[in-house]
């Protein structure tokens, strides 16, 4: 058994460095970007002149449809359609690109809901106070609302990040040989699925633990200002 682990580990790690990690990082960055944009679009109250109002309504329609579509369908199917289906429309993407796009869109749809909730959790008093200083919406968002929302959004977003690390294994269905696939290939030769699964789980655990530590650190940083001293649950 040790023999198996010794030979398999470097191969799986190599696949992790080559695919799992870049896929995760790129897709999460893309997903958060889409998630923030989508959350903001959903939260805007249509106002201004009729043209602007109409435009906002259309954008909101798109945002709702996008979130619905990508939350409602299996990630595997999304990957499949973007990789195998789009060529029918003449769009032929390399597997890695297709994977990054799909994972970003999927993460964006899910995280937009989390971000929306976190933004809503900041009391509207804070908007008032910042607006009263003459700050623009963008400034208010960036400087006042986001820093407070991040504290609330961090744990669920970490969930999504850590989930994404493992979802990247679905990329194997569109020919990307990531960690899990490598483990399966090795397993197909040694017929020790339990050992291989535990090994790949351990390697994922290392990756995710690093992320959990990062989450803990970020949480402490972003809640420096929160109540200290008196206990909540006693």
């Amino acid at each position: 058994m040790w023999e198996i682990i010794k030979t398999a580990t470097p191969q799986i790690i190599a696949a992790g460095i080559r695919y799992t990690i870049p896929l995760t990082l790129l897709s999460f960055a893309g997903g958060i970007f889409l998630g923030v944009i989508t959350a903001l679009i959903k939260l805007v109250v249509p106002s201004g002149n009729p043209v602007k109002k109409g435009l906002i309504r259309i954008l909101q329609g798109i945002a709702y449809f996008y979130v619905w579509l990508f939350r409602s369908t299996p990630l595997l199917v999304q990957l499949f359609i973007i990789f195998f289906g789009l060529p029918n429309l003449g769009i032929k993407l390399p597997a890695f690109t297709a994977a990054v796009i799909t994972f970003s869109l999927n993460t964006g749809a899910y995280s937009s809901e989390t971000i929306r909730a976190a933004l809503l959790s900041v009391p509207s008093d804070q908007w008032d106070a910042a607006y009263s200083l003459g700050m623009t919406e963008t400034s208010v968002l960036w400087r006042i609302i986001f820093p407070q929302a991040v504290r609330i959004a961090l744990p669920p977003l970490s969930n999504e990040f850590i989930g994404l690390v493992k979802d990247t294994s679905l990329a194997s269905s569109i020919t990307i040989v990531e960690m899990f696939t490598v483990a399966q290939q090795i397993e197909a030769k040694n017929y020790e699925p339990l050992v291989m699964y535990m090994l790949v789980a351990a390697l994922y655990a290392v990756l995710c633990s690093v992320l959990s530590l990062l989450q803990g650190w970020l949480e402490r940083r972003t809640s420096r200002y929160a109540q200290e001293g008196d206990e909540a649950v006693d």
Partner: protein
Amino acid sequence: MKRLIKLEHVNKAYRQHQALDDVSVSFDDGQTTVIVGPSGSGKSTLLRTINLLTQPDSGTLSIDDLAVDFAKPISSAQKIAMRKKTGMVFQNWNLFPNLTVRGNIMEGPTVVLKQSKTEAAAHADELLKSVDLLETADRYPNQLSGGQQQRISICRALAMQPECLLLDEPTSALDPEMETQVLRVLLELAKQKQAMVVVTHNMVFARAVAERIVFVENGRIRYDGSSDGFFNATDERIRHFLAGISLSEGSSMA
């Protein structure tokens, strides 16, 4: 004297309730106006309207050279331009919990007025000193007492050097000593011809700062005139409203 802020025929209804009922009132440059009235009469709503935080159903507002019609949508740029002319102190302080005390005061000057950090910080510390809170500069708001937060929110508004300062209950969490201190700050500002609109329940304080008094009841303006005229009014409603002070004074300020 120049009309600085002018509201005309402003209406605002919350479902069942008419919070502002055809309000027309204006505030002059360089003048300190105190708004008084029963709880729930619409004073905060009036201040929020001037600051464009609440959009009434109808009516118009002009500040200085800018004007809006509430019946129509108002652009963000317009809102910002008008808000820059006023500074607001909230009844509930609304400090930014994620910024230190100094950060709270510097926020407007650096982000909106594009002052340099050092300049804004120096000014912030000056203001903090004037309300005796310099030593709290690096703390976060939730580490402060109510009165301390109140004073810091005044500093935050003053840091913007607004044409008109809007204060909602600026002394409600302050002890007499601090009240005096804030009063001094406001009187000093008044001397410099800083326009101010102050909502207060504290009649002693009102008398001390008011050049003019506006009395609001049920979303309507019931009195608008000199401070002396108000406190010596023969109007039944005003006498009854003011009776509170006399009662307390009468009953135990022997």
